[in-house]
């Protein structure tokens, strides 16, 4: 079987079709198996160079992209904020030109400005992978969430997925909304009205500010991290109040479906978005998300570099 994959870059979920999303998720199954073997490495990207350009701090995503590239036999260079010339005043365009001059084949970028990956992709021959741009998109996170859900339920369509928390500032939420609606899942967004405004109904989501109503029929509860770094005082009620009104505790979770999955993109603020007993409990797939993230990123790197464009 063959499939015509036509993208050199992965900039977001929005431009992808349901068929392309399915293709990535199917390929990721094969890459997950590579991680379970004695030799956890395949030669697909031998001789290719990947540069991880993380202008915003990240441990999990950067490590995951680094390990994914290593398992595909690519060479990886990490450029972190503090060490980069950007702090010395270099523009993103000049950084990009320099990366191009080093013949990088893949650039994985995380940036606080929405659209930064698109800016690079339009200027570079290299494959550009968006590892999170501002509050815009974080496509590989949505793909790994979808992979994890599909692994548990065998499908995405028809499932009730509740995304709980700081939706307004969350690129994870946006990518998840794009992906899940394309795949036919039903989305409920919940949280404080300042962080979950009604305008999200335009995406085809249900919006509620009542957490108990939000989780009652949920097959999947995806908890978002409270992003202290992006909060403004006027928007956020305060940690104690948030935990009391919107945190997922044992009492609330007891009223959810017994089969409901608990997901979290990490890092967890224990006792704020979710109680430790639930995060570490039997319904939690938080660590499986990390494992699956590696497989999904391998698939994305493989596909974006694989075609003759």
């Amino acid at each position, binding site marked *: *079987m*063959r*499939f*015509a*994959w036509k993208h050199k870059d992965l900039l977001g979920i929005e431009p992808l079709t349901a068929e392309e999303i399915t*293709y990535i998720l*199917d*390929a990721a*199954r*094969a*890459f*997950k*198996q*590579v991680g379970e*073997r*004695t*030799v956890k*490495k*395949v*030669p*697909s*990207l031998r001789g290719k160079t990947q540069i991880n350009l993380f202008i915003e701090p990240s441990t999990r995503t950067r490590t995951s992209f680094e390990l994914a590239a290593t398992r*595909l036999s690519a060479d990886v260079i990490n450029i972190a904020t503090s060490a980069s010339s950007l702090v010395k005043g270099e523009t993103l365009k000049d950084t990009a030109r320099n990366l191009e001059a080093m013949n990088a084949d893949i650039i994985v970028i995380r940036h606080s400005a929405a659209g930064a990956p698109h800016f690079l992709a339009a200027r570079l021959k290299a494959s550009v992978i968006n590892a999170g741009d501002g509050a815009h998109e974080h496509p590989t996170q949505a793909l790994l969430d979808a992979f994890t859900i599909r692994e548990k339920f065998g499908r995405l369509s028809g499932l009730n997925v509740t995304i709980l928390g700081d939706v307004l500032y969350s690129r994870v939420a946006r990518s998840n909304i794009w992906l899940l609606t394309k795949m036919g899942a039903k989305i409920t967004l919940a949280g404080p009205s300042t962080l979950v405004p009604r305008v999200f109904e335009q995406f085809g989501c249900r919006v509620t500010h009542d957490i108990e109503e939000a989780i009652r029929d949920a097959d999947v509860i995806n908890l978002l991290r409270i992003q202290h770094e992006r909060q403004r005082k006027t928007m956020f009620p305060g940690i104690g109040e948030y935990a009391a009104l919107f945190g997922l505790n044992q009492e609330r979770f007891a009223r959810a479906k017994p089969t409901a999955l608990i997901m979290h993109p990490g890092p967890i603020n224990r006792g704020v978005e979710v109680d430790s007993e639930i995060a570490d409990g039997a319904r939690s797939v938080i660590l499986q998300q990390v494992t699956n993230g590696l497989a999904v990123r391998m*698939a994305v790197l*493989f*596909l974006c*570099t*694989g*075609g*003759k464009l």
Partner: protein
Amino acid sequence: MSAVPLMDAAALDRALTRMAHEIVEQNPAADALAFIGIRTNGVPLARRLADKVGAICRCAPPVGELDIGMHRDDHGLRAELPVVEPSHIPFDVTDKTLVLVDDVLFTGRSIRAALDAIMDFGRPRRIQLAVLVDRGHRELPIRPDFVGKNVPSARRERITVRLAETAGRDEVVLEK
């Protein structure tokens, strides 16, 4: 484009039966034998060969399915990408005699990729190669141990193997 039939269902079955006997002859210790089919067409062929070998030596050699998509040497050069799937090798390959099975042997590049892919699962004692059709034009120093039919062909011709399991009928045709 015209199609010349090379093998019908009966000829294909006879070829596989003969290959099974040759495999048993060359491997007296049949209990250490295992078959690995290269997706897609190698898999049903591997199952058929394993059944025939099993009937001859009254044993049940295990069969694995190998995906070589990640080990190919043309990554970045193809217009279309393969659909990669997990390999399924339900036994330990270490110290086994593996019979690697594919439908058509052409340049040898798929076999090179398959050999590398197998080594990721362990260290077999020996690997032998069984192909239904050898059409020549090798680009690598690879030769088959068991061949169903040798078909001299021109480079631009296509050889299509259809199998009952995937295409509803058994046949091999040469398309000019």
